[in-house]
């Protein structure tokens, strides 16, 4: 009954004059934070730029400065729409870099800010973005000390692109790093997952959900400071779960440390995010956050670390989501409520809404 297609000729050249998948050009998936992003770095950037600071692929680098050591980290911000429930690109540009510096265990101090402005951007919008940066920087205790502006033709940028670079100071006894997770460590998450990504998606696609979803953009630096005071060197790794979501952050750490991660219990996904993801066929584990971090800490420090996180409004719902195991190295596995297992892999590229 099952027969194969009788006659088939090779696809005419005119039909698809494009190279094989993934070859030859940048695709949006290269910016997803998934496997395509990782491969882009591995194949093109690291072989050329690779050095002792870069190879660790942390959120930033610890570099020597005249006998001392500082953390430096940079991030570029592109988002559409520029303004969304819970913030605008200005909030992201400050929080994003402040958080990356904090994930290296440092206290963020100075920021640079570079702007690519598109011809036609309204001053009103620009002012709101700059005001957001000013207020956010003040709240984070960082100063914007140098900057640059460029203007490009209409159509050459999405309103405004922002780059920020941050400098932070280190306590030399506190050096969390993605390659320091050890079997037995517990995995903590600082807050509810998926709010930023779903807020952006709702705003971008004009989707109205029953409950409004607001971006979680926030500084994580105070949480890191409290963690340092409470657990010090027992804090092994810190990572903010930005693009690619919690799943990608955990996969990066599992790979860097050569350990397995086992997720158990309920993950902190707000009802509205869960409902929106359900509707669109997306998995909240892969949805971006801008104010959530994952912390790997020694088992003895679990209670202290959770208390330290929960002392802040941003970390009020911090919770343990899993632990580090010696098995399935480089892999993240979720124990389901039924007792089954599911691999939580890195996605190849962007998460796409499903049909069924």
């Amino acid at each position: 009954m099952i027969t194969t297609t009788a006659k088939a000729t090779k696809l005419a050249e005119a039909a698809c004059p494009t190279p094989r998948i993934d070859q030859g050009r940048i695709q949006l998936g290269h910016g997803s934070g998934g496997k395509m992003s990782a491969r882009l770095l591995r194949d093109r950037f690291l072989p050329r730029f690779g050095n002792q600071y870069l190879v660790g692929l942390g959120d930033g680098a610890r570099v020597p400065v005249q006998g001392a050591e500082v953390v430096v980290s940079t991030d570029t911000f592109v988002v559409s729409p520029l303004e969304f429930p819970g913030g605008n690109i200005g909030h992201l540009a400050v929080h994003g870099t402040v958080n990356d510096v904090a994930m290296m265990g440092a206290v963020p101090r100075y920021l640079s800010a570079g702007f690519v402005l598109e011809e036609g951007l309204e001053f009103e919008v620009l002012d709101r973005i700059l005001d957001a940066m000013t207020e956010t920087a003040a709240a984070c205790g960082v100063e914007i000390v140098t900057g640059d502006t460029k203007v490009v033709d209409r159509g050459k940028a999405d309103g405004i692109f922002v780059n920020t670079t941050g400098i932070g100071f280190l306590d030399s006894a506190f050096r969390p790093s993605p390659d320091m997770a050890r079997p037995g460590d517990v995995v903590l998450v600082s807050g509810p997952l998926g709010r930023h990504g779903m807020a952006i998606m709702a705003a971008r696609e004009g989707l109205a959900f029953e409950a409004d979803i607001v971006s979680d953009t926030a500084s994580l630096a105070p949480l890191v400071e409290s963690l340092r005071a409470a657990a010090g060197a027992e804090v092994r790794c810190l990572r903010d779960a930005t693009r690619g979501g919690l799943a990608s952050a955990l996969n990066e750490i599992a790979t860097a440390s050569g350990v397995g991660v086992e997720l158990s219990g309920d993950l902190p996904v707000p009802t509205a995010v869960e409902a929106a993801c359900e509707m669109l066929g997306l998995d909240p584990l892969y949805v971006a956050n801008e104010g959530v971090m994952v912390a790997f800490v020694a088992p003895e420090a679990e209670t202290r670390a959770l208390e330290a996180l929960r002392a802040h409004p941003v970390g009020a719902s911090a919770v343990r989501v899993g632990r580090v195991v010696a098995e399935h190295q480089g892999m993240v596995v979720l124990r389901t409520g039924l007792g089954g297992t599911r691999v939580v892999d890195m996605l190849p590229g962007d998460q796409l809404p499903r049909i069924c």
Partner: protein
Amino acid sequence: MKYLSEYRDPEMARGLVKRILDTSTRRWTLMEVCGGQTHTIVKQGINEVLSDAIEMIHGPGCPVCVTPLEQIDRALHLATRDDVIFTSFGDMLRVPGSECDLLSVKARGGNVRVVYSPLDAVELARGNPDKEVVFFAVGFETTAPANAMAVWRAHELGVDNFSVLVSHVTVPPAMVAILEDPENRVQGFLAAGHVCTVMGWDEYEPLADRYHVPIVVTGFEPLDILEGIWMAVRQLEEGRHEVENQYVRSVRREGNRPAQDLVSKVFRVVDRGWRGIGTIPGSGLGLSPEFAAYDAEIKFGLEHIHAEEPAECRAGDVLKGRLKPYECPAFGGRCTPESPLGAPMVSTEGACAAYYNFGRVQAGAAAGANS
């Protein structure tokens, strides 16, 4: 979530698992037809906890997976045209054609857009009268009514710059094809709840009769699936072969009549190729002659585009349960989720992609080493 969390309760699920394990006096082989069910089964590890009593064969019911290479190539061709805005559900964008996928075409300047409803594509056509808007109408009976509605609406509004590239498939002929196969191992089916919401379950009764096979119309949440499995196992243990409805909160015997009427006005039954399986007679929907003006294949003269599936791919054997994905020589090497040879490795809910993940947990990182 209200109306969902009730169907995900772990305690009740464990109770059902126990009942299934206790009821089975031997190991039964069941097939879930729909990709949505495969997704839940894999995500919750249902096949793993039941493996002593039940072998689940993941059926061909993932529209993304089974869309034939030829239609993907035609989509790619359209998307490269300057005068076309090509619209699609999101997850079709990464499905590889012979040479590339829609995402790569987009990267090269093709106007490819994700829509959440086919009616959005009609609106896009109204807003862009100087462009041709094509919608990739794929899916089972579930998406057929909405896609039919888009064509109907375009017709009503006189939107003549809108057309659809149709690759609709239907479930019962695929089940017949599986059951007719001399090497078939499937002893019971979970029919797809949402397909039956539209079509009802009348058409499954002759199948249950003729092939002596239990068919349980089943929903998509963990408890739905476990209950569906339990109902199928009970039938098998008692020697019954009936159509039963587990998904009572959504499915009625006669289905959704207005939706069926619309589908039968806009579409007609055609032979359709299934990626990895081949052509199954009468298993597809194409546009009715009255709506030929909205047929992108005619409008853009795409009939000359044919494609050949890689001979190395043994998806047909996998989908029939004859070959375990990891027994395929290409598995994990030449064929991975990032560069799939065939249907079941294409989407996360395909059988090979599912095993690609499970195999790696069970056998360490070996199978995933080259990912």
